[in-house]
């Protein structure tokens, strides 16, 4: 039985490109969902006036 290597390789390339593109779009979507669900950062909370600084600034004596 003779294999048609060109067609086999073309199928592998085709599938890998299509799957990668689908994976890329899906991962980007997952990233956006994760970002929407993550807790707000300190600077975001401070912008909304919901967080206060609870420590003193520190600088060495000299």
């Amino acid at each position, binding site marked *: 039985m003779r294999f048609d290597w060109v067609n086999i390789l073309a199928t592998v390339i085709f599938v890998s490109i299509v799957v990668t593109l689908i994976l890329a779009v899906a*991962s980007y*979507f997952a990233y956006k969902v994760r970002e929407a669900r993550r807790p707000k950062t300190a600077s975001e909370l401070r912008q909304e006036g919901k967080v206060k600084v609870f420590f003193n600034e*520190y600088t*060495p004596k000299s």
Partner: protein
Amino acid sequence: MATETPGNKDTGVTEHPEQAPTVKRPMRPITQLLISIAIIAVVVIATVFLFKYPQKLGPIFITALVVTLASFLLLLILRHFILIWFSYLHQRELSQDEPPDVYPFVSIIVPAFNEAEVIQSSLSSLLELRYPYYEIIAVDDGSTDGTFERMREFEGNHYGVKVAVFRKENSGKADTLNYGIRRSKAPIVVCMDSDSRLTPDALRYAVRTFADPNVGAVAGNVKVINRHNIWTKLQALEYIEGLNIVRKAQAFWRSVNVIPGPIGIFRRTAIEGTGGYDSDTFAEDFDMTVKILSAGWKINYEPKAVAFTEAPEVLLDIIKQRYRWSRGILQALRKQKHLLASTGGNITTPLSLWYMIFEGLVWPAMNIFSNLFFVWIALIYGMTKLLVMWWILLTILDLLIAIHAILMEREDIGLAIYAVFYRSFYILIIDVTKLFATLEELVGLDMSWGKLARKGRI
């Protein structure tokens, strides 16, 4: 306990009140998500339409597509050979460089926000530098994970190297770097990330470039330290290729267009002349680079000034990092758009910026569409040989480039095999992220800095 700040003199470096480039109330997360979904949907539907019903757009569409993609392939090959040629010329210059006669005093600024896992390793690496005369300024940007307490263990004098530790309210990386620069004293300032480790000879090699009085800054060589899964190995290869080919080629013209966050070495007068880091973009290192170039300074690259950095280990974190870089670069380019048409003086600055636009905007879209186009041709016209030949050509090109860069850098040759996955898999994912990030920047969607989880690998 606040005391008088040493070295807090009135320099050209300003301190900015806020981290994010936000002047209005941020959008609600759900609104941001819905806009992102709408953008994804529009892109996917437009792409499917384009390739499913090309006849509706007429034969001119097919011709334009073929011509564009043929140009893309030609450009790709030309780009590689031009970059290799200039990187070789820069390498030849470097081999003639001698170590400096005099080592100037250097201040190393280490900004940190919630880096408890890595900060001590980073500061330890700085105390091991083989350099005669330097100080370390570590600034905690209001961390909540014990970073400050771990920093303070290093405070004091270590065999002539002074480590000064500061803590301030959270205000972002750009502002924290400015805070440190204002409290430093040296004529040469090193800005680094707190998740980076410098190699012992990094400073000795970095300062030799400042023998040229026109050089305002030097970009160091960043390498990935955590190489234990496919994502980190692909990033390691990406850094090796990007730095060895692209940055070296740019350095031949003394117009390096990104001084990387993990290791950037600046002449104090250059950094002060620009007013310091700005907080209005998410790529403060690129923004600073453009400001220094536009002020007429030259920027060089020193491959032996090596900093190891911890790369994101999972796909979503890589996407997060690249999303921020892409939008940050676009924000900085928008700020400095007047330089794109500037022809007075140094022609390499506008060229360098146009190259960034090409790499950031045009290249990702063309790469995605060329992949789709070849798949489409193979499917519709049964031209499977063309698909295979195209793939083999690109893979051979990528493999040769990877081997060249790895040998130049004396890196692990085993990384070369990842070049096979690089273009057809990794870069495709990165390019999709860049495409969406560009579209979101164009519609002005809000974004925040975010924070990558550190594993403490450095």
